[in-house]
């Protein structure tokens, strides 16, 4: 017999801070912390904004090492386990679902400063595969279960969560640790600049004047279990993943594949579109993503699109990690009584027909849709609720 999966523990380190309280407080008051990063290696005469973790001076990207990488990771996981209140036996019983775009590339880039070897040489000689980071987590915390590392670009950790929940629902496992982690790396920053995807100054998804995305770094971790520990734990209701084969870099602007993903998630959850109380959009701020996503919402919801929020302007686009990071930011804000507004949004794009929340919206119990899309046509929708579990 199937059962539900619940988010019983969570923690995040991002540009807004490293405690849930300060992060939600920043979201409530639309406070953001944006840094500027130069393209020194390519000798380009300008900088681009980035949402950097800034805990202490040593956090600057140039000073980082593998120790820094694992410090952020282990600190986040440790606090998520503590938040869930799992005991040692329950930790040992866990399975790890990890999602990232950059995987261990920041480690090789960080170590580059300490050796004469080239980054690519270190990468080729020392890479222990995509599973390395999840392997480090289980070793550090004495977790005995299996590891699954998802590499589906910007949907990586959303897919990690989708499968962790499905395995709990199907009773294949009892509990899971789901981690989304992408740290600053030149590969991603320079790569996105090469694609001309980076915004010049301000993050403005869905805005008429949007001009691209702003990357961010963050580590988020959630504990999923087959039972609620606290009355306000969010419950996973369903999800879907499909491949939009339109283009490797963009989605079909009519939004058919994206809408199909939302509709499949609704069917999986046994819901109708009108049951959704609010949508966390993927909202990268790029021309194609926003056009596609809004078209898809019109297909799925018709004239009654629920309130929509875009949370990337708070922490940046944390690429493969955004699945878990944005889920935490969104659901923790709801627990505090509000759906966050979209900072940076000022002027509606009449072609999109969707205006995101410009002020925080009061929120209580409800059902919420979270959308994630990525390069390689990957589309993932998750549906969560903080209502009482049926039965």
């Amino acid at each position: 017999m199937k059962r539900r999966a619940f988010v019983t523990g969570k923690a995040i380190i991002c540009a807004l801070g490293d405690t849930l309280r300060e992060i939600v407080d920043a979201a409530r008051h639309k406070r953001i912390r944006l840094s500027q990063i130069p393209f020194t290696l390519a000798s380009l005469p300008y900088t681009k904004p980035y949402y950097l973790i800034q805990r202490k001076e040593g956090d600057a990207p140039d000073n980082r090492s593998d120790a820094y990488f694992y410090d952020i990771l282990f600190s986040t996981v440790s606090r998520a386990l503590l938040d869930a209140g799992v005991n040692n036996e329950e930790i040992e019983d866990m399975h790890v679902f990890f999602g990232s775009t950059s995987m261990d590339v920041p480690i090789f880039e960080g170590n580059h400063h300490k050796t004469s070897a080239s980054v690519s040489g270190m990468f080729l000689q020392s890479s222990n595969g995509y599973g390395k980071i999840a392997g480090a987590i289980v070793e550090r915390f004495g977790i005995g279960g299996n590891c699954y590392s998802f590499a589906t670009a910007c949907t990586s950790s959303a897919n990690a969560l989708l499968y962790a929940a499905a395995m709990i629902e199907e009773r294949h496992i009892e509990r899971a640790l789901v981690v989304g982690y992408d740290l600053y790396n030149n590969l991603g920053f320079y790569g996105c600049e090469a694609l001309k995807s980076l915004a010049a100054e301000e993050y403005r998804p869905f805005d008429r004047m949007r001009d691209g995305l702003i990357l961010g770094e963050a580590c988020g971790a959630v504990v999923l279990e087959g039972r609620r520990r606290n009355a306000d734990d969010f419950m996973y209701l369903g999800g879907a993943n499909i491949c939009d084969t339109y283009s490797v870099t963009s989605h079909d602007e009519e939004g058919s594949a994206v809408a199909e993903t939302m509709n499949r998630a609704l069917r999986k959850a046994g819901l109708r579109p009108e049951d959704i109380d609010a949508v966390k959009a993927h909202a990268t701020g790029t021309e194609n993503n926003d056009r596609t996503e809004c078209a898809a919402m019109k297909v799925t919801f018709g004239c009654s699109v629920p309130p929509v929020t875009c949370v990337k302007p708070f922490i940046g686009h944390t690429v493969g990690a955004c699945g878990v990071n944005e889920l935490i930011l969104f659901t923790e804000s709801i627990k505090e009584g509000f759906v966050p507004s979209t900072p940076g949004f000022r002027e509606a794009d009449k072609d999109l027909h969707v205006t995101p929340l410009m002020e925080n919206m009061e929120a209580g119990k409800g059902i919420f849709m979270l959308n994630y899309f990525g390069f390689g046509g990957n589309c993932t929708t998750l549906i969560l609720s903080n209502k009482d579990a049926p039965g």
Partner: protein
Amino acid sequence: MNEMYIHSASTFIAEAHTDTNYLKEEIRRYTKENFRRVNKFILLTILGARQCINTHALDADTAIYLTTEHGNLGETADVLDEIYEVNSLPKPFGFINTMSSTAAFYLAQNLGVRGRNITVSSQHLSFERGLELLKVDFAGGVERSALIGGVDEASLSEASLEGCAGRSWRMIDGSGWLYVTPEREGAGGAFTEIRSFRDGPSCVRWMSEREISAADVVAFGARIGDEEAASLRDILQPAAEFDYLREYGYSGSATACGISMFVKLYQGKTLLHINRDQRGNYAVIELQQF
């Protein structure tokens, strides 16, 4: 165990550093599409999977599960060199293709399918973990047909073979694929066990206590050492052993290649494949051919 029937399988292996033009030529035997701006990892993915599908008509919702240890190893190194050695921005498509999920995308696009599209990895047990995801999707009724494969370029990494002391194989490029559905009709075999164990003794206990007859053939993954293989042979008493690593070489996706090769080579036989990771977690796959 939920039904997971194997309808076709294929393996493509090549010596390390195979030329991409050769791969493109091979792909032309299966599709007219001309692949541009793609790298070796993508070509290996398409070639192995197209060989597997060949003339099968696929449902539009067919899912793709690409398992890999290292993903786009070569192109990631090239893009890092563009940034750190050439001191320039990377080429756009080079950067995009560092994301290994692009391989499963190009495959889905070529095949015209838009089911689930997952790229997953797990140190030394990537293919086994991919099968577990497929199993949960079939169990939940989410998918009704799937292509599952393992793809890796030959790795120069010494770390990737850490723990395989005393055993060495030649490095190869590998792409092994199986087409799987929950329907028995038309199938040539089935996965009858996909099981994980937290340690060796639990795995041995399960094998010893099984009431069903022994497998015809056993195969061991890269991290099962000679001594351990010998003691497992004593327990299992197989009629034969398929040492695909010695015969064909090693890639990060050796398990996927070995299993898909078994389907082709051992008609009517049963295989028990035993593997472990660096922590000592074990995974067993049992496959029965009709």
